[in-house]
């Protein structure tokens, strides 16, 4: 079991009052809570702080924690002799536990009488997938360390690896649930669940908005003005796209149902966002032709500014 210095994590003295500890936690919560924090490692730091506070705010847990003595943070340690008898934990189980599990379990065992059913813990994992993964569906491997309870009700960490199928058309921000795959329940309690938070990775070519996909399509001025037919790569292979004559910049050309699959059995659309690309250097002949066009055309795109 690795030691954590809960007082150090909260930035308080070992003899801090309950009020001091509460204030310290609240200030840190404001700074590191993942839902409001801008800090880089907010989630990990918040987990540590929450664990520290849960132990130190409870007088009995705090007393038990103080009895562990001061150790080096991050170092493996064992509770001093007599600790287990005093606080009711079987000595052999320490190696398979986390400090957090130790104190979480402490509350449970203080209750008198037969413990009721305990539901297993839930786990949340962020799953980054590519747009191709979403288009085709994919399988992912999760390596988790979940908490189980032995016959005595003592918690232990068990490494598990789970394969999960991500269905086609999973979009950014979607949550998928694997029921009953979380921590094991105890005393007839149900198992917890695993929640998968889908995060769509940035793609070199496509940008996703829900099930719709967007990509940039540069056209030459003459292609846009005269119209043309071009071959477009899509996630399911090349497709021909008709560019109507008189297409302007920023226009969106729709390729129906070529986006990401959706649960209705259809799919979102693929949109080509037109950009007009101007040749950086013109040959003499090209220049001459452009000047002729300029002289002949009456097209005024700034009429509204006159």
């Amino acid at each position, binding site marked *: 079991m690795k030691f954590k210095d809960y007082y150090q994590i909260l930035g308080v003295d070992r003899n801090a009052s309950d009020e001091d500890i509460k204030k310290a936690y*609240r200030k840190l*919560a404001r700074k590191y*809570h993942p*839902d409001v924090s801008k800090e880089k490692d907010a989630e990990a730091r*918040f987990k540590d702080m*929450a664990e520290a506070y849960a132990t130190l705010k409870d007088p009995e847990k705090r007393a038990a924690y103080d009895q562990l003595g001061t150790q080096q943070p991050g170092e493996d340690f064992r509770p001093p002799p007599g600790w287990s008898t005093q606080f009711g934990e079987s000595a052999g189980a320490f190696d398979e536990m986390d400090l957090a599990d130790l104190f979480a379990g402490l509350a449970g065992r203080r209750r008198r009488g037969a413990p009721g059913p305990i*539901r297993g813990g*839930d786990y949340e994992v962020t799953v980054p997938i590519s747009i191709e993964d979403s288009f085709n569906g994919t*399988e992912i491997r999760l390596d988790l360390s979940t908490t189980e309870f032995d016959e005595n009700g003592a918690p232990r960490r068990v490494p598990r690896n*789970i*394969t*999960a*199928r*991500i*269905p086609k058309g999973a979009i*950014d921000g*979607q*949550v*998928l*649930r*694997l*029921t009953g*795959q979380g921590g094991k329940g105890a005393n007839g309690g*149900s198992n917890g*669940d695993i*929640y*998968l938070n889908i995060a769509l990775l940035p793609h070199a070519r496509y*940008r*996703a*908005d829900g099930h*719709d*996909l*967007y990509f*940039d399509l540069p056209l030459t001025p003459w292609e846009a003005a005269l119209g043309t037919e071009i071959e477009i790569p899509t996630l399911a292979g090349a497709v021909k796209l008709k560019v109507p004559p008189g297409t302007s910049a*920023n226009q*969106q050309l729709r390729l129906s149902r070529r986006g990401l699959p*959706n*649960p*209705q059995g259809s799919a979102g659309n693929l*949109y080509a*966002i037109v*950009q007009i690309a101007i040749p950086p250097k013109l040959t003499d002949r090209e220049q001459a032709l452009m000047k002729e066009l300029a002289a002949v055309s009456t097209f005024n795109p700034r009429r509204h500014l006159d």
Partner: protein
Amino acid sequence: MTNVPDEASSYEQPARLPLHDLMEASGLSKYEVLELVEYGALVPAEPMAGQWSFSFRSITVARAARRLREEFELELHGVALLLAYMDRISDLEAELCALRARTPR
């Protein structure tokens, strides 16, 4: 063995999670769910029906409510307020995402 997520996990699925399942998945008590419905943070499919059912998305909201209550030590009225703001932020992020998708690089 490959685990397949619940069919219910799709946002578009109709609401069919009974109250008890929502309580079990979120760890909230019945009273707490009722309170959150009162504050508008959770919305049952048919509020007037005898038996309530909730969408899968309600699980996410209910779990967030429990987490926020524990982590910020707030009572549910404060939590409901926080959830409303987080919803607004979510909507804004979705708008931004849509705009960015439509903006050429």
